[in-house]
């Protein structure tokens, strides 16, 4: 059988971002995949060495616009670790609250895109409508819809209290109502099951060997979640990672669906148990020494490392994002699949190219 190689991307309707997959096919079967990245590389790590360390919060936030809050959180925790800053408990709970809202909005966005890739347009629209409620909460509490800039070194910028908290609870209830109507459809619908069940298998052992992270790893049966480390207020709020054993695209969908429920629960819990007190402490001095931090982002483990030398500028900042770790999974999932399934399987790892290439 003759083999044909052709490019999938960088500009492709199913991909919101620029990545190229070079697919080698025998007839309609994919036999080989080569990802080609680099279309969105900016050089954030290098630029971060040139900026004063306080300004890097805003640069790191823009590594990715979807999970921007988690990027800012990781960088802030990293610098707080270097400078031995104790963040007030109220700020920690507020950080959990915004992190979980970011996770919900990211997962809702992904479920919508999956539905769109399947050709299930009405579900795409419903998901994005429900997501707008969460964006309203984010805008109301932080001032911005997608890039919140509410996390700073030493705490957070804004407080949630009194009237605002009441409105937030009402909006979360409103979201829950809409989500409860959508979630059974995502889990049970015939079209979704037919296109995802048994597609893009990532065996349990291989997932661990390749160093896969996040929902992709949890859908292959590993209870691996960085929130178990107990950063911010996760240690006090307590939670169990969502695990599925299916190893296929359907299991990955289920993990994300169940994580929306879990995140909503955590957001309620964080807001209900908000401790009294300050929301930020003053930062004095410059970072010195080395530190590394892991944070669970919607797509998986986000790792950052920094080295400071007692000046306003960092000597080195390293950012490893979850999609960077998850792209090798495509080399296992795609070979053997049919060409028409490539968009859905590619989407099932929730690729975020802006993150990957920084």
């Amino acid at each position: 059988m003759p083999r044909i190689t052709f490019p999938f991307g960088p500009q492709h309707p199913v991909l919101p971002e620029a990545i190229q997959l070079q697919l080698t096919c025998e007839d309609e079967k994919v036999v080989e995949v080569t990802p080609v990245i680099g279309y969105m590389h900016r050089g954030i790590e290098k630029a971060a060495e040139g900026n004063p360390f306080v300004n890097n919060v805003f640069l790191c936030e823009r590594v990715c616009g979807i999970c921007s809050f988690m990027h800012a959180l990781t960088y802030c925790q990293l610098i707080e670790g270097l400078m031995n800053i104790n963040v007030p408990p109220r700020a920690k709970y507020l950080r959990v609250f915004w992190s979980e809202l970011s996770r919900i909005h990211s997962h809702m966005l992904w479920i919508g895109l999956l539905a769109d890739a399947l050709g299930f347009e009405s579900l795409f629209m419903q998901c994005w409508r429900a997501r707008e409620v969460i964006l309203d909460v984010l805008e109301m509490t932080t001032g911005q819809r997608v890039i919140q800039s509410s996390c700073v070194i030493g705490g957070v910028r804004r407080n949630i209290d009194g009237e605002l908290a009441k409105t937030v609870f009402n909006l979360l209830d409103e979201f829950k109502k809409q989500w409860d109507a959508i979630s059974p459809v995502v889990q049970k619908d015939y079209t979704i099951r037919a296109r995802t069940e048994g597609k893009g298998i990532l065996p349990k052992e291989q997932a661990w060997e390749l160093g896969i992270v996040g929902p992709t790893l949890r859908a292959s049966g590993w209870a691996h979640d960085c929130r178990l480390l107990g950063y911010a207020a996760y240690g006090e709020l307590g939670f169990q990672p969502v695990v599925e054993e299916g190893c296929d695209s359907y299991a990955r969908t289920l993990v994300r669906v169940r994580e929306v429920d879990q995140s909503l629960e955590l957001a309620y819990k964080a807001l209900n148990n908000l401790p009294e007190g300050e929301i930020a402490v003053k930062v004095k001095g410059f970072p010195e020494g080395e530190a590394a931090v892991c944070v669970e982002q919607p797509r998986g483990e986000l790792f950052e490392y920094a080295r400071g030398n007692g000046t306003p500028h960092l000597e080195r900042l390293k950012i490893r994002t979850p999609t960077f770790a998850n792209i090798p999974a495509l080399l296992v999932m795609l070979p053997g699949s049919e060409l028409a399934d490539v968009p859905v399987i590619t989407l099932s790892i929730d690729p975020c190219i802006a993150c990957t290439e920084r």
Partner: protein
Amino acid sequence: MGLITKSRIKSPWIVHYSCGGCNGCDIEILACLTPLYDVERFGILNMGNPKHADILTVTGPVNHRNYRVLKNLYEQMPDPKVVLAIGACACTGGVFHNCYNVLGGIDKVIPVDVYIPGCAPRPETIIDGVIMALKKLNEKGSKAE
């Protein structure tokens, strides 16, 4: 205004390219297409194909790798066409202005008709920008006729 120009600005088709930004603007453009903002009621459709499109929306700064892709997309679009630079990065390079791989705003590579500021711009701002682009499309179309 001729019939062709009239129908063109009644239902402009968009092709979107994400140059190298952070995604924030991309998801706001997608939000414009979904129920809350729903630009489809004005006949605005998102197309994957540059040869179908009247408006090119670009987010993010151009870098050394993707400026050829952007130029290529622009050249494939039929005249008259307008270009929207969406977000601070597409306008000037924004927060990434001092990154080594970034050339700057997209106007370094292709001519831009409307600049939409903000990081990320709200969907209302984007819709406003598209309406301004339609005026330009009208002028360009009338001149061609």
